[in-house]
Every structure is written in C-alpha cells, then in structure tokens.
C-alpha cells in the first residue's frame, strides 16, 4: 500500500508538470493568434 501511494504521488507530480507546460503553450499560441487577428482587423 505504501508503494502504491508513492507511485500515485509521482504520477500526480508528473501530470501536474505536464499541465503547467500545456498552460504555457496555450498562452503563447493565444497571444500569437490575438496578434494575427488584430493585424487582419
């Protein structure tokens, strides 16, 4: 049980880190999209 709890925590950390990266990428793409839209307007 102790080992499975540790594995869960590691998996949770990994997914959290991935979420953080995805959020940053989404922010970058949104900024570019907004700039492009602004130029087209």
């Amino acid at each position, binding site marked *: *049980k*102790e080992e*499975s*709890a540790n594995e*869960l*925590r590691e*998996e*949770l950390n990994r*997914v*959290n880190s*991935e*979420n953080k990266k*995805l*959020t940053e*990428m*989404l922010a970058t*793409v*949104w900024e*570019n*999209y907004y*700039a*492009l*839209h602004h*130029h*087209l307007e």
Partner: protein
Amino acid sequence: MDQYSSSSLVDTSLDLTIGVTRMRVDEDSTNTNALVDELNRVRAENKKLSEMLTLMCDNYNVLRKQLMEYVNKSNMAERDQISPPKKRKSPVRDDAISSAVIGGVSESSSTDQSDQYLCKKQREKTVVKEKVSRVYYKTEASDTTLVVKDGYQWRKYGQKVTRDNPSPRAYFKCACAPSCSVKKKVQRSVEDQSVLVATYEGEHNHPMPSQIDSNNGLNRYVPLGGAAPSAAAANSSSSLAEPVTTVDLTESKKVMSPTSRIDFPEVQKLLVEQMASSLTKDPNFTAALAAAVTGRLYQQNQTDK
C-alpha cells in the same frame, strides 16, 4: 493452586493496539483515495488543456493561411498595375512585401509605398525631360570641327559615328565636372551640314566663366523660348518638350533646318533684339566694337588729311 495456575493462563492485557492499527489502515486508504481523486482531476485538466491547445493551433493556422492569401492577392494586384512599364521588381516593393509577410504590415501601407515609388519615378522622368535642351548653331561650311562656343568650357570625352548621320557625334562634359554634371552632344545636322546641333543634358550649377573668347567665335547661341544651357535660363524653363534654339550670325540667309525655320517677321524682330541685347551685354564685344569704330574714325581722319 489450580485456580492460580488456571488464572495465570488468563490474558490480562488491555490490548490497546488493536484500535490504532485499524485507524492507520483507514487513514492510508483515505490518502490513497484522495491521491487517486487528485490524479484523476489533474488528468482531466490535462486532457482539456490538450484539446484547447489543439483547437487554438488549428485556428491560428487557419488565420495565418488567410493572411498569406490576402497578402498574395494584394501583391498580384500591385504587380498587375506596375508590370506594364516595368518588368523587373523593384527592391523597394520587395521590402514592402516581405515586411507585410513577416512583420504583419497591413496591405494599405504596402500600397502607399508602391504609390510613392511610382510618383518618384514619374518625378524623375519629368526632371530628366526638363533638363534636356537642343540648340542649333550656324557655322562656316568649311569648319569641320564640332566645337561650339556657348560660353562654357567643355572637355571632350568621346566621339562616335551614328547610323542616321554620316557626321560623327562628339561628347563633351562640363570642365567643372564632376561637381557639375552637365553633358553635351554635338553633331552636324543631316539636313544642313553647316548647322551644328548641340544637345545639353542637365543644368550648370555655376555661373558662366567670365573669360569667353567671343571675338573670334564662329558661332554663338541666343536662347529663343526654351531652355538655354546657361543656369539662369535653364532655371526659368518649365516646358516638358525639348526646347529648340536656332542661331545664325555668319550669314544673313535663314537656317534651312525644318525644325528651326523662322518665317515670321515678328519672330525675326524678336530674334534680332535678343541678339543685340546679348551682344551689348558682352563686355568683350563692346570693347571690340569700340576699337573698330575708333579705328574706322582714325582711318577716315587720315584719308581726310
């Protein structure tokens, strides 16, 4: 003794550890469940973020493609407008297009730059047209040189024979070059070999030299309407067509050049007035005239005596 012995077998301990073990198991299971729940929540969030990112990238690519098509269309339209007079793309337009693609400059700014470029080219053409003037000089038929005494000093830098004229064409540039960029082409007229045709390109940026050999000059020019090669006269000209000037000081007959024929008495009178005005302004001519008159008077006095 049996009671004691039997009683000694009875477990008298409180067994306090049983409840603690059960609580520890419950706590572990609760933590595990919380971890699992948290993990599920984060995974769901991860999936949602991935979907949003995919959607955002798709939208961005679509928008970028639209912008590229829009820029290409505007470039094609500009090229259609500009291509007839100019086949080669100009670097100015290239810069405008590339900046529109890379920096996202709007189409209107690119059009403005191309318009400015066209206007600039038209202005340059106009300036070039204004600076060209043609002057006809009457010379002695026996004179085979292509020297035209127009008051400025020139350096000959070339001569060539053209297809349309048996007489060679001489090329001169102003003696003040490179500070003064005026050039001159001199060639005998096809119609009348005694007429020299001088074509001037540009305007002198300096006054006419004071030392002019005017006494023994075979030919002189008088500006008539169009631009003369002198700076002052050239500045006053605003005509786009090539000005034509005819001079005949060696003979009284008219110059037979078809482009320079002067038949009207008013024009002849004006020409004579301008010639007289030009000659009287020349101090060398005035001195020579005074000397000639004085010499004639002296001769008359000698003969009278």
